[in-house]
């Protein structure tokens, strides 16, 4: 008899809506995804496609109301997170599934120091760590922050946008989660810093063997970072497969249109491509 191990993360037929004026507006329709340990999955789509809602729903972070979890299962190592009581779910949040959000400048609490915000994470999920400062410094170094010791007492507004995002990543990783969900981690940064952060993520992915879900609207950044890609449109997955295959041979017209939107250096275009009306 062989026991098949449950997949690392399996989202089955997830549907989420937002209630507004007595009606429920669908945001995520029947989404199914599978993620294996050590792999990176990219969820790609434009604003409002339901990619962030899917990511937040994994640990039920969407406030309900207005969010309505209409159906489906989110199996994390076989445990259905959608059915878990809030109190037990809190051990998963941060501890086993950590998040990095879009705008680091507003995602760090402005009135607390870097040290106190990172220490909070460690005390909660890694009570065995005694020398908290040393552990914080170790992680800050890991994400490429120079002079980490001096940053401990800094407040978020005293750091640059790129530094803030590095702190967010260090904070998320310091709890040693099984899964990192990065929700548009580079969107609010300028291009050179974007490249640095992406390189950092790539490095950490290799060094730590991280399992990651990367949410982005930018297909250009997922090459070399994601093993699988899911393209979302209007709350549904329209294309799902290995990254290279999707990028080389897109099947769905929406994916093709998204790919065409990426400007290239070796071509001369007068106008940038846009998504055709009928696809929207």
């Amino acid at each position: 008899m062989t026991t098949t191990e449950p997949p690392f993360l399996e989202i089955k037929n997830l549907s989420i809506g937002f209630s507004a004026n007595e009606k429920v507006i669908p945001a995520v329709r029947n989404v199914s995804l599978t993620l294996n340990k050590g792999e990176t999955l990219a969820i790609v789509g434009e604003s409002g496609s339901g990619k962030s809602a899917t990511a937040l729903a994994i640990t039920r972070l969407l406030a309900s109301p207005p969010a309505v979890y209409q159906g489906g299962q989110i199996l994390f190592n076989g445990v259905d997170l959608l059915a878990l009581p809030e109190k037990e779910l809190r051990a998963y949040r941060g501890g086993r599934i950590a998040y990095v959000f879009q705008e680091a400048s507003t995602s760090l609490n402005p009135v607390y120091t870097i040290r106190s915000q990172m220490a909070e994470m460690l005390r909660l999920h890694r009570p065995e760590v005694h020398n908290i400062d040393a552990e914080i410094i170790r992680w800050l170094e890991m994400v490429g922050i120079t002079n980490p010791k001096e940053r401990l007492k800094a407040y978020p507004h005293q750091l640059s946008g790129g530094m803030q995002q590095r702190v967010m990543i260090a904070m998320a990783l310091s709890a040693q989660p099984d899964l990192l969900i990065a929700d548009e981690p580079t969107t609010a940064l300028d291009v050179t810093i974007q490249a640095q952060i992406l390189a950092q993520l790539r490095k950490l992915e290799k060094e730590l063997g991280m399992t990651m879900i990367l949410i982005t609207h930018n297909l250009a950044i997922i090459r070399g970072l994601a093993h699988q890609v899911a393209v979302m449109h209007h709350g549904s997955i329209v294309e799902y497969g290995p990254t290279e295959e999707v990028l080389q041979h897109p099947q769905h017209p929406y994916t093709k249109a998204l790919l065409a939107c990426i400007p290239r250096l070796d071509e001369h275009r007068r106008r940038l491509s846009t998504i055709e009306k009928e696809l929207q």
Partner: protein
Amino acid sequence: MLSFILRRLGLSIILLFLISFISFFIITLTPGSPYPWGEMNPKISPEVKAAFRKKFHLDLPLYQQYEMMLHDLFTGELRSMKDDLPVMKKITDRLPATLALNIMAILFSLSFGTLLGLYGALYRGNWKDMSLSFLSFLFIALPGFWISYLLVLTLVKYVGIPILGTQSYGIEFPNHLTLWLDRLWHLMLPAIVLSLAGIATQSRYLRSSMIETLRENYILTARAKGLSPTVVLYQHALRNSLRPLITGIGMLLPSLISGSVIIETIFAYPGMGQLGYQAVLERDYPILITLNMIVATMVLLGNLFSDLLYALVDPRVRLE
């Protein structure tokens, strides 16, 4: 920090001079006379009148009166035109009662206002929040004297809560404890009435600032860390929502000294409000100008105090 405080204090002194100038002229140019007797009283001889005018420098030109007033204000030599008692003594006689009442009222306003505001923000939209909002607007809208009389009618009858003065008269208190408890008991009703509007406004301010804060990204971060709702609320949200509370503290500070005319009258409470009201009716210039200056000082100090608190609570605020 220190240079900021010194600069603000320096500015305040200049401001206080301007305020003293303006209030002196408003007070003295108001119709009516400060004589302790009727202006047309035939029994008062012109000599007595002249002596009174000379004593209080009323025979001098206004700008000289202003100079004398300023001098006496600083040396503490101002005397009431009514009973010739030193103004400072009249004020210090009243101050403890006013301080006790208003400290109580401010404590009520801030503590209950904060609690109810938090509660409203947490349960926004449901019936509890709706009824709290309704009550807040009701207490902001209803005049204090009307609520006072309702409370007097009901509480005095059914609870036996005392309503007159600062302590029971004609009773021997066996020890200090019973005396202080009796005083506290007398303080209750006026303090509650004084704080009702404060509780209502504070809770409204805190509620809206809290709701705004709860929408911030860092609250999502805090929840995504796996923190309990209590920690998210009290550690991450509350400190970011304290601005209206601090503004409230700064604005409430002057009332510590100035008292309240209406509430003190209803509850026969011997506070500064009564003193000021009497002084207005009797055109007791020295008392009026002193009270005015004290309140102005408190307003300026209150503002400075809130600015310092803002910086203490939020590291992004820089005092320069």
